[in-house]
């Protein structure tokens, strides 16, 4: 029997959220032990008996029984969730109380509580993201370090420090309070957005790892809009943006496993289901008068998704959307993307002009795709030598072997002989269409 992909990882998040709710967030470590225990038991028993019909119910029941043992044995020694004390004290109420917390809807709410708790204002954004991945998505420290291309001890420190803040917060975030909920929601959006970006634009060379981060971000945002208080336009916009971008993931590597730029991607590989879901969510996001950066980014992705070929892209609309995004959330990366869109519409010289005008451009000084964009536009302007210098600079900043291979090809494309045929064939294709 084949288990669902990442079943354990996901169940880890569900179990720990529920257990931390019952034990109290200050006993997070105890909750994690119980989860580990449930997995060890599953490993031993399923090895010999095969997986049960409903593996997640089996794991949950195991965790619940272990929790009941602990609650009975330790109730004089430990303080559990303070608001539950009176229910956990007597045998009469213990079982029904715990049973209730293990109902599907309660588990869902507990995951949301945990998600909001992880986005504690006292934690820096990158710590929130790591904590969400660790607690709710079941990633180990090593797996997070791998995904973030960071070293083990840095991530370990970040997570243990964050856990201390979380455990010190007395109780989990209360999602029933509408005012608190709305106040914390933007931080949650931001953390999920960063999680998605880590997958989509991150430095990891493993495309599988990156796709998993994107999937997790999509899954957690769907959990958000399932809750009435979080089903707001910004949540829909964020989810729409994720779906529309994730739809392109299968085309990001070409047949020989090399990175493929948006313009060169085989668009037939874009995932039509995710595009449709993205559009549906984008429609739902347009219900209020709130306009967030997620709306704009989703809209830009939707414009790309509507172009069956790169030549049919509505660049004017994309430039206009980047203009709005620059007003809402200006950043050098946004400015760079805007410049690239302008180059598509008005030619490479105009694009280069815009790149030269980027404010705080020094923040892009180690970003390989800044230099790659300069190289691309110089190459299109016919300045092969300058283009090659830029691509070499980009190559020096490449973050993994995949980026290195891609940029090496671009350096080679600056040689007069190899670059010429691809240009002409490209033009011929355009002509054929008209």
């Amino acid at each position, binding site marked *: 029997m084949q288990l669902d992909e990442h079943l*354990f990882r996901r169940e880890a998040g569900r179990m720990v959220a529920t257990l931390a709710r019952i034990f109290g967030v200050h006993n997070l470590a105890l909750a994690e032990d119980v989860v580990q225990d449930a997995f060890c038991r599953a490993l031993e028993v399923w090895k010999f008996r095969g997986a049960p019909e409903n593996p997640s119910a089996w794991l949950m029941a195991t965790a619940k029984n272990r929790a009941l043992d602990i609650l009975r044995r330790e109730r004089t020694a430990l303080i559990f969730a303070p608001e539950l004390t009176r229910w956990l004290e007597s045998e009469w109420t213990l079982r029904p109380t715990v049973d209730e917390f293990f109902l599907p809807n309660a588990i869902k709410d507990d995951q949301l509580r945990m998600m909001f708790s992880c986005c504690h204002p006292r934690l820096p954004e990158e710590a929130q993201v790591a904590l969400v991945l660790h607690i709710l998505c079941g990633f180990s420290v090593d*797996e997070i370090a791998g995904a973030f291309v960071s070293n083990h001890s840095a991530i370990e420190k970040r997570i243990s420090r964050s856990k201390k803040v979380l455990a010190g917060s007395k109780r989990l975030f209360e999602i029933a309070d509408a005012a608190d909920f709305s106040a914390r929601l933007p931080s949650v959006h931001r953390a999920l957005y960063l999680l998605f970006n880590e997958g989509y634009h991150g430095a990891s060379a493993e495309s599988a790892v990156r796709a998993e981060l994107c999937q997790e971000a999509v899954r957690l945002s769907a959990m958000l809009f399932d809750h009435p208080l979080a089903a707001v336009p910004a949540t829909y916009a964020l989810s729409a943006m994720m779906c529309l971008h994730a739809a392109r993931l299968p085309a990001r590597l070409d047949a020989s496993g090399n990175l493929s730029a948006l313009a060169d991607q085989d668009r037939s590989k874009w995932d039509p289901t995710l595009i449709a879901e993205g559009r549906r969510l984008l429609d739902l996001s347009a219900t209020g008068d709130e306009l967030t950066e997620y709306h704009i980014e989703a809209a830009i992705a939707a414009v790309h998704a509507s172009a069956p070929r790169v030549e049919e892209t509505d660049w004017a609309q994309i430039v206009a959307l980047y203009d709005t995004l620059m007003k809402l959330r200006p950043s050098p990366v946004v400015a760079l993307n805007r410049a690239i869109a302008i180059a598509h519409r008005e030619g490479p010289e105009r694009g280069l002009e815009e790149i030269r005008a980027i404010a705080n451009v020094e923040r892009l000084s180690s970003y390989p795709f800044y230099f790659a964009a300069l190289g691309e536009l110089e190459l299109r302007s016919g300045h092969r030598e300058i283009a090659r210098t830029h691509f070499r600079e980009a190559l020096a900043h490449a973050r993994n072997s995949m980026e290195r291979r891609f940029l090496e090809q671009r350096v080679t494309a600056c040689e007069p002989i190899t670059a010429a045929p691809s240009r002409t064939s490209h033009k011929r294709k355009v002509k054929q269409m008209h």
Partner: protein
Amino acid sequence: MSEFVFLYRNELPAAPPSPEQMQQTMQKWMTWMKDMGEKGQLKSPGHPLERTGKVVKGKQKSVTDGPFTESKDIVGGYSLVEAKDIAQAVEISLGCPIFENGGMVEVRPVMKM
């Protein structure tokens, strides 16, 4: 055909594996067991054993917590395998995923009576 007991021996890892790693280990075990079953080599999948218990020994019949918690190779479970001879039984044991995590399989012929 002869019968063999596979004793699975390993120690608990120092750092707990991640959920993803545990799932992968699990998947490999299930595949291996299923494979033995389909080939008619598995007389009985056997049982896992708890890692805690008691050890009773000596004339005094002293009872201590065990089994030998300091030992690196606690028996974690056993299966009953059918093979033509010990060589084939060993051959079958080679597919066991336990080796990936530093464990071992003890292959013991069941005595014919």
